[in-house]
């Protein structure tokens, strides 16, 4: 939701990045204020997932230009784990499976690491168990998932719920949800979206990276940005997502080219 006088959380200016020497991001500008929900849409290969990974600090993506400020501080001075502790969260498109580590151990380890960094109390296994079970209700997850290995043998939908569960535990200031809707059936989509909506406050912000408008029926964005070839080529309100659904991505790029007189 857009709030009057809310402070900028994320300020991206002229961001450029390469992967394996190939430039993928070619100058991105974006401001996200606390309380807002932004959707970044675009076709495969437009650079939207790269943008998400660059913000989280993936080592394979090399920043070659521009600046990103998070709460006014240079994001690139922070290692990935420091970004996480400072309040940046990336929900992965393909969450990693870790057979051999129980989900509850993993969740408690990450929770306590971030809590300690924020000067808050850590929870012992029993306290954490109560706490996490409460959060799991938000996502209609069975407590059975606590005893299983992290994401191992989870269905696509179960993995995505486990991602949002981590978001619920870590309480990030900025949550970037990379294709969280992909691979979800309609029931799972509704549950995941409902969970995300309940986590949204006036103090945090959410960036939804998505190919399809479908997710935006459930998590209503304040801004919709369209990416193409490593740039944001159009920004609008939630209506833009509906127009894209009707007319397709070609419609924006044709419009852009016409405006540029190409």
């Amino acid at each position, binding site marked *: 939701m857009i709030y009057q006088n809310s402070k900028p959380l994320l300020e991206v200016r002229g961001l450029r990045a390469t992967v394996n020497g190939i430039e993928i991001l070619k100058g991105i500008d974006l401001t996200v204020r606390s309380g807002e929900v932004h959707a970044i849409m675009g076709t495969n290969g437009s650079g939207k997932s790269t943008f998400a990974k660059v913000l989280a600090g993936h*080592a394979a993506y090399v920043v070659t230009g521009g600046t990103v400020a998070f709460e006014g501080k240079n994001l690139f001075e922070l290692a990935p784990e420091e970004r996480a502790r400072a309040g940046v969260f990336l929900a992965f498109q393909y969450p990693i499976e870790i057979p051999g580590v129980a989900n509850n151990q993993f969740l408690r380890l990450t929770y306590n690491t971030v809590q300690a960094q924020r000067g808050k109390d850590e929870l012992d296994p029993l306290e954490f168990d109560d706490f996490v079970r409460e959060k799991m209700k938000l996502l209609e997850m069975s407590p059975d998932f606590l005893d299983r290995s992290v994401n191992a043998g989870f269905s696509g939908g179960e993995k995505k719920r486990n991602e949002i569960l981590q978001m619920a535990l870590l309480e990030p200031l900025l949550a970037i949800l990379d294709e969280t809707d992909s691979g979800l059936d309609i029931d799972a989509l509704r549950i995941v979206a409902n969970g995300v909506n309940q986590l949204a406050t006036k103090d945090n912000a959410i960036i939804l990276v998505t190919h399809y408008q479908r997710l935006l029926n459930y998590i209503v964005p304040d801004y919709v940005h369209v990416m193409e070839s490593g740039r944001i080529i159009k920004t609008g309100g939630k209506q833009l997502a509906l127009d894209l659904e009707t007319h397709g991505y070609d419609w924006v790029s044709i419009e852009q080219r016409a405006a540029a007189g190409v």
Partner: protein
Amino acid sequence: MSVATASGYLESLLQGRRQLQASPLAWFDRLRADAVERVGAQRVPTTRNEEWRFTDISPLIKLPFQPVYTASNLQAAEVEHFYLDPAAPRLVFVDGVYAPQLSTQLLNPATDSNVVITNLSAAISAHVMVLEPHLGRYAEFHNNVFTALNTAFLHDGALIIVPRNVSVDMPVHLLFIATQKEATSYPRCLLIAESGSAVTVIEDHVALQEGVYVTNAVAEIALADNARVNHIRVQRDSSQAFHIASCAVSLAQASCYQSTSITLGARISRYNLNVRLTGEGAECTVDGLTLIAERQLADTHTCIDHVKPYGISRQSHKCIVDGAAHAVFNGKIIVHPDAQHTDSTQSSRNLLLSGRAHIDTKPQLEIFADDVKCAHGATVGQLDSEEIFYLMSRGLSEMTARNLLTYAFGAEIIERIPIVSLKHRLEQTVLERTQRN
């Protein structure tokens, strides 16, 4: 090392047989005499032998240690930290000699009345009809000099007989404790699982202290129709010891054998596991974890032999190698012409924790039937950077992320052990050996 010295080694080993007593059973003596003859006809393998290409055991030739024949006076207080919790039926052998004061039967008399868990020499006369068709029949010694040696020294061992349709609730703990330096022990196990029976056995090789000694172990496991055996093998010998072992398993129709072998100890170790699916619809799961460091060498050779149709085999072998250690895995799968509809998978995954660590892994598929499913794969490497990034994106430091993933790599195999106390102890070992700071 010259052949003359190597054969001198075998000769001097065999001299230790003088203290063995003749058996009243002619077939038993004949089995041992055959084995002595086979020792004489073979040589200690060198790296020129294909089966020993990666494992140089020539240091062993300098160590013609004799077996121990005297009973140990070891007290329970010294070894009870090795016991399972809750207590389970247990046979303890100290330096290869049966230790009745440390062993215990803890069976449920109502359900397990006819289950035999005892030392072989005590039972041999009573169960001679049952034993003769099994003892020494699976562990092939004509082409394996170490199995021949073990059989030549056969006089005692662990014996488990699970009668028809009996399920033994408690796991059976076979505990082999090494206490003496410069000794060779020849542990021997025979497990007969009769039709429809079920049992879990832990074969546990431990050391009371560090020292140079030699273990030459042989196990034979026979599963009749529909029998189920869960065999957990833990080798945590002294890091200066030598451990050579063979296990031969025979599966009759629709029987199911599950093996989890954990290799942690010994300076040089070699484990041969041969599983023969001789009946239709037999099933085996063969999992292994090798976790070694410094200058250890651990070699695992498995052979899963599909003889009859509709067999299923699942194999997952993992090695975590640190320091200048060297792990070897050779996984042979044979599918005979008759073994149509065999369904077999094999995976060999290996993690190197140091630049000097070394792994040789060799899947070996010999498929002679045409309607089968056989999948195999092998990976050698470091931790996956995507996995590390995932954990770092959740606030964990790179070191913590690496430690967690390394631990998880090993824990995935340990997790399959159904005895909680043993599982926790091994998880602790994996944790201690894989964590950096």
